[in-house]
């Protein structure tokens, strides 16, 4: 384990790898004031700082849309790739194949994922590639001025009064069904929960799919919208209190027996889930699927860690790759010797 320093947020503090929180910032956001996406960027900065993530190991990936602009606004000293619409999963997959030591943080939107990118989303989840895949979900296309996206709820309205008459895609249910090994839903306005979820995602190895409700203040924050701040606040249905304890920190929490689920994550960090009304174990796939259905039928949305399978083999493991990044293997390890070519030629005579 790395040397433990007391992680501390706030100005002037440095984290366990000696970086100030400032060093996790990006360029100034160009998104609208009050946009949920900015709050998510702040949480990403905070989580990476607190976890002591090395910025030069991070690759930020995105597709197209308001959400996909946001990687420029955090972790400015990390590499980033703002790719094409709906195809970030493939770019992220390629990057991770090239260098398995990278930490991939992907940011997508509900249109980028649920519409144009649904195909790549589906196959990313199936592969359980190590990547954090965040959907900044506002139920509409912001950058093209407010059209419905596939996560818009039935009956939700546009500013113009147009009613959405198609059912939404539940990206969490889909991700669980398809094989993602870490699935969470949160709300950009819930700092504590989102921080815990992000840190847990950084501790996970495999696809961590985070659907984060992130209201669009300009096009989808009105009465009649089910993705507005007001609606989100009143319909948020947390599955429990989340407490994240990183592997490098002393555990000094004390829970009453039977009230808490303890989930050990890949890097040794622990997530504590203190139950609220009902007992909920995020390692139970059936329970996860049913809680999504139940809350939806009640008109609320379950938030928190919905499903986790900490030991599921990830895609890179399945490919049996050498430990070093493929990208930097020297010539003598990637070009077979002359004798190999000669043997192949002999075989063709």
């Amino acid at each position, binding site marked *: 384990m790395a040397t433990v320093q007391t992680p501390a947020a706030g100005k002037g503090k440095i984290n366990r790898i000696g970086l100030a929180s400032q060093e996790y910032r990006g360029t100034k956001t160009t998104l609208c004031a009050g946009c949920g996406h900015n709050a998510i960027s702040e949480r990403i900065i905070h989580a990476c700082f607190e976890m002591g993530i090395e910025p030069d190991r991070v690759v930020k990936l995105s597709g197209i849309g308001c959400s996909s602009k946001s990687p420029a606004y955090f972790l400015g000293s990390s590499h*980033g790739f*703002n790719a*094409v619409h709906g195809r970030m999963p493939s770019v992220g997959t390629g990057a991770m*194949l090239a*260098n398995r030591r*990278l930490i991939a943080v992907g940011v997508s939107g509900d249109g980028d994922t649920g519409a144009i990118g649904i195909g790549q989303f589906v196959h990313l989840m199936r592969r359980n590639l190590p990547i954090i895949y965040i959907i900044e979900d506002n139920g509409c296309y912001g950058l093209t001025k407010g059209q419905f996206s596939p996560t818009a709820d039935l009956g939700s309205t546009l500013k113009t009064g147009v009613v959405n008459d198609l059912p939404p895609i539940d990206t969490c249910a889909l991700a669980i069904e398809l094989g993602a090994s870490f699935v969470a839903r949160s709300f950009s306005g819930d700092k504590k929960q989102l921080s815990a979820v992000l840190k847990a995602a950084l501790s996970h190895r495999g696809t961590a799919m985070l659907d984060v409700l992130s209201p669009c203040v300009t096009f989808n924050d009105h009465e009649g919208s089910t993705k507005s701040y007001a609606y989100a606040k009143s319909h948020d249905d947390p599955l429990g209190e989340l407490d994240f304890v990183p592997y490098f920190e002393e555990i000094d929490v004390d829970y009453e027996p039977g009230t808490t689920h303890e989930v050990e994550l890949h890097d040794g960090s622990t997530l504590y889930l203190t139950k609220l009304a009902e007992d909920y174990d995020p390692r139970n796939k059936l329970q996860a699927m049913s809680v999504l259905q139940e809350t939806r039928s009640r008109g609320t949305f379950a938030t928190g860690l919905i499903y986790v399978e900490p030991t599921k083999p990830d895609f890179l493991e399945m490919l049996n790759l050498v430990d070093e990044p493929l990208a930097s293997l020297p010539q003598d390890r990637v070009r077979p010797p*002359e004798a190999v070519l000669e043997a192949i030629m002999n075989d063709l005579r």
Partner: protein
Amino acid sequence: MAPEVAVQEAPSQPTTRRIVNDFSIQVATVNGSGSQTANLVLLRSIFRMGIPVSGKNLFPSNIAGLPTWYTIRANRDGYIARKQDIDFLVAMNAQTAQEDVVSLKPGAAVVYDEPLNLATLRDDLTFYPVPFDKLVAGVCRDAKLRRLVRNMIYDGVLASLLRIDRAEMERALEKQLGRKPKAVALNREALDVGFAYAEQHFEKRDPYFVESMDATSGQVLIDGNAAAAIGAMMAGVTVVTWYPITPSSSLCETLIDYLRQHRIDKDSGKATFAVVQAEDEIAAIGMAIGAGWAGARSMTSTSGPGVSLMSEFAGLGYYAEVPAVIFDVQRVGPSTGLPTRTAQGDVLSTAFLSHGDTRQLMLFPSSVEECYSMAIEAFDLAERFQTPVFVMSDLDLGMNTWMSQPFRYPEKPLDRGKVLDAETLDRIGKFGRYRDVDGDGIPYRSVPGDPMPAYFCRGSGHNEWAQYSERPDDYRKNIDRLRSKLETARNWLPAPVVTINRKASIGVIAYGTTHWAVVESRDQLVNEEDVQTSYYRVCAYPFRDALTSFVERHDRVYVIEQNRDAQMLSLMKLDLAPELAGRLRSVLHYAGHPIDARTITDSILIQEGYRVEKTRPQPSHVPQSAGVGGE
């Protein structure tokens, strides 16, 4: 018992005319009947006798039950392009037999399945009826196997009629079936039965003979897809992402086999490569681009429909300056087109693949050896120029079997291009991802995971610091630098192969598989009408300046290609001065089968004002009813 004589129709007299090592054999079967083994054994045994050969498979987009033709051309002079006329037909397919026979030129020979009763169709051919069912019943009790073994009988018959060395044929059989001794034994018996039947029942009445030569010694037989796969492995490819599509699938499949054999780390038992079968071509190239950005040598392989899907990512690769290698094994379009037929129809669309002012680098291999060497070169070029590189093969090259000198081990070390290191950073001061530091249009790049300064890669407008920018001067500067990068590329790319004939006032230009028919056609032009030509074989796009001087030297220049729209000629027109562009003429072939020399020769002669003897219209090898299948 007196030998049953081949059906006796004129010219039925045993001929004294001998045509040695210069003929084509066509085997007409039903696909899915396992004829490929028999055909490859036939090809390899002639090859092993030292005679130049080529084998071309004309097959339907279907798994079983539709007509397929395999053509072997043996030619002592080394002409291995497709030949229009068939000299020796093996008619195994009832569906096409009549049409196949009707389309033969007089004097051809036909081995056929006896019940097809073909001998009454023509009186100017030599027929050899063989009771295949009866013969195979004696060889093989298992009805399921019979269908497969049946084809080996015609190999035996041909060995007898053409005088193919039986020992070579047996060796070829062993080579083909490898470690399956039971299958080898069964097939050898079928060979023997066919041979014995022909020896007993046929008197040789056709003029075609095989005689040993020494023109293939040391050479190998391989298809272009396998050759490209070997090249990719030798280029040190590390990330391979692909989606199955005819006719490119075998490229990645062969590559996977080779990588598993030769690229597993000995100490750890782990792979020094990653292969992913993607969900579609968009994801395949997306992964290749992602991997290229993160520093891997990445590739994908596809065909026309896949290239169309890859368009948006190809533009991203060009504009964000990300290396990747794309093999386009071209097939007939538009749309689904003819998935199992060959063409050079993606030239124009690939040159400009994607919207905006996009230009792509293309390489044009014309031989299996170039599939290998250009594969290696493509990876160097992609990293040197930080852009996608398209290797433009085609079905004829990719899926057919070609002779070749053995491939040479690469002498040059891998060229990883301008990757930023500490020393360079010191020299250039501040890192700007898209800054033209060296004046060649090629900027330095850092790679995720390395300790160099990072940058934000994007398909949106950017300045030389990789910052988002919509400023007109930033846009202009960047897009102009991209053009200057292509100007640098022009003279780095593989040089054209130019043969200047001082007596020639006309030139020919070709590329890819068209080359083989051009070689033969240029000789025909000299031999038949004393028409002298110079030859410029294009190996890459953008073109070198040598193109201009070649056109300047000649009054008329024929650009020969396998598409309807004269795509390469159109690209050349964009580069040449109007006066020179006016000298370009076209020879076009676009019927789905590989171009042949006669087509070129006749077209050039006609355009040059010679009278060309009207030959029979070229037979359509595909009946209207056939060729219906999936993709």
